[in-house]
């Protein structure tokens, strides 16, 4: 059925561009028609099935139309104000299904993910969310919205049980997936005492395992540092030992100039954490050695030369 027939009782409401439009978008006739009726429906506050369908068309043409999403939530609420609980649930389940498709088509759209949250709150079956997010992450493992939604579902409905193994699997698939590393910290933060010696020990072992496999990975190093720094490096000498060992390539050549070709083999992350550890010792010896390492980093990490000059001058910067 044509839109004009469905809404034969309504006069489309035109968009008024004024005398000299700015950033005018060359809209298709279809866009103009759908938006014309949609504007009228909004002004009339019409909460009907046909209006709900119309808003889906508006969303298909522009998923960032925040008003259309807002209208859908209101429309469903109004439509089912007097419905049975069963009918109401069925309607929101349909809406969640509509959302599935929209999330897949517009993975980086804020509105659709926010709308999904509202649907889950109405339906109250959060378990399905973890499965759904897993599918999204299979396509885009670092999707910021999907991770945000997952965290919301986990904390709102306490679904922590299998999350750590899920995260570990993702790290195995891609050890550079920083979102997964962040999620690991998030889970532990909510389910354990992250400063307890047992957790710290276990996480040092976990991070070290992945660092040994790939020493040049900002994600695993940042995780290691994030775990140990709050409790103090001195209580966990194995961290410094690993740094010394992995930085050895750079330390060996301290006497002579580095061959340019070797620069990529040197573990800058190990040197960098070593600077933190030595400066945190707050001893003349530690500070002096950290300063020497900063000088070396000025040469080995020339894009950050100004940063390493500053770090050498500020031995308490990370204190």
């Amino acid at each position, binding site marked *: 059925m044509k839109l004009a027939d469905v809404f034969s009782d309504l006069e489309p*409401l035109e*968009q*008024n*561009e*004024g*005398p*000299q*439009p*700015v*950033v*005018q*978008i*060359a*809209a*298709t006739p279809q*866009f103009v028609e759908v938006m014309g009726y949609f*504007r*009228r429906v*909004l002004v009339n*506050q019409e909460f009907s099935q046909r209006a709900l369908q119309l808003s889906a068309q508006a969303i298909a043409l*522009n*998923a*960032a*139309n*925040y*008003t259309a999403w807002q*209208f859908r939530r209101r429309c469903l609420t109004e439509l089912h104000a007097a419905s049975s609980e069963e009918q109401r649930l069925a309607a929101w389940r349909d809406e969640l299904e509509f959302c599935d498709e929209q999330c897949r088509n517009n993975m980086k759209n*804020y*509105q659709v*993910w926010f709308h999904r949250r509202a649907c889950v709150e109405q339906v109250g079956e959060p378990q399905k969310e973890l499965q759904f997010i897993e599918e999204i992450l299979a396509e885009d493992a*670092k999707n*910021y919205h999907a*991770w*945000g939604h997952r*965290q919301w579902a986990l904390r709102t409905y306490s679904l922590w049980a299998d999350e750590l193994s899920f995260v570990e699997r993702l790290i195995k698939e891609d050890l550079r997936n*920083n*979102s997964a590393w*962040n999620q690991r*910290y998030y889970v532990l*933060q909510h389910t354990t005492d992250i400063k307890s010696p047992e957790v710290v020990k276990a996480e040092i072992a976990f991070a070290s395992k992945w660092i040994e496999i790939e020493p040049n*990975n900002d*994600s695993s190093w*940042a*995780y290691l540092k*994030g775990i140990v720094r709050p409790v103090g490096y001195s209580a966990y000498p194995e961290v410094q030992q690993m740094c010394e060992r992995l930085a050895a390539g750079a330390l060996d050549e301290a006497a002579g*100039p*580095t061959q*340019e070709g070797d620069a990529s083999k040197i573990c800058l992350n190990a040197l960098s954490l070593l600077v933190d550890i030595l400066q945190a010792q707050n001893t003349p010896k530690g500070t002096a050695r950290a300063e020497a390492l900063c000088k070396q980093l*000025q*040469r*080995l990490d*020339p*894009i*950050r*030369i*100004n*940063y390493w000059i*500053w770090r050498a001058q*500020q031995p308490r910067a*990370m204190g």
Partner: protein
Amino acid sequence: MLKTAATLYRYHHRILLAVMAAGLNLSSHANYFLKCLQTLPHQYTSLDTNRLTVAYFCVAGLDVLGRLDALDAPRIIRWVYAQQVLPTAAGAPGGFRGGPFLGGEFCGRPANSSFDSGHIAMTYTALALLAMLGDDLSAVDRTAALALVSSLQDSSGAFSSTAGGESDMRFVFCAAAICTMLGDPGCSSIDVDAATSYILASQNYDGGIGLGPGMESHGGSIYTAVAALTLLGTLPRLPRANELVHWCIHRQLGGYQGRPNKDEDTCYSFWLGASLELLGAGGMSDRVAIGDFASRCEFKHGGIGKCAGNHPDVLHSYYALCGLSLAGWEGLSRLDARLGITRRASISAGWLPMPNADSACAECDEAQSHAMEDLSLRHASDVKVALEQPTAGYAPPSFIESSFRTKVEYERWVASGRALPSQ
């Protein structure tokens, strides 16, 4: 070899920059912004509800290029004011909508339904646009706009986009920016402590900041967080600022990446460059590498993409230029990193104090010329473009026209953004 390069870089970066700057085709970018300000093809309908933002990027881009003279400012000012939501009653929220997509007459007008309301990000971009174009904001309903901002703060301290919309760090920044722009520099219209707590709670184990508590550190959320703290006056409360500097500076690969282990993207030279500047570490970036990356993302017919080979868009074009300006490139206006606009615009709007040209700068002998630069637009002689005038005439709807005796009176009213005079 490395040592030589580093030494050369340290002592002669100014010379290198001058050479590099000549490589970027600035006039083609001015043309690109002017073109987008006119009409976008139908593939851009996803921007229909955010047209104010598109206008903001274009005008701000021209301001950074020193080419605002190419614009018909009153025309854009009038269009911006037409998006103002006037309050329906005293104390009711106002602000701006993202464009005329909800219909209704072309003028600042009250909401035509409960779905027609101000949007916090559109309100920020509207105020920025007006200031850049030299408007004095006298037709902004300040009370109503601030009422919108305070109505959008939730119990977590964060802000929503609109009533019933999503809330996160982006809108905390918008709230702080709007308060500053509307002459509420202490942000007394909002709960500063709650907003600050939300930001601090979003700092992660790695020193970075996410879009909300627990969320992965991200260059964009870091900028909105740091700029918000600066505007709220609570940046000194950030506990691990140096770790944040470490996080930010380590995102530079050449250009900046937005998260660890992601690809470089031109917009992060602004998000992270501005964050570093606000954290007092503005000089730490490798300026030459930023220039190199931007020039690789430049499109030959104007505009800059997010990475090499990508189509240009107004957001990346503007932020790439901002990144170059922050990195100290010649030929671009200097930025007010807090508000995402030029220092010139901020100073003329009274959001930054007038620079004191007499005070000698210890590190540079160019204090005087910098001060002048802030206050004047530079006119690159090689850029000659004028906005085309639309051919179609416009007649105001008759019911509006009848309220005015002359066209001038009507236009003055449109520009004022006030409600229709009572008949």
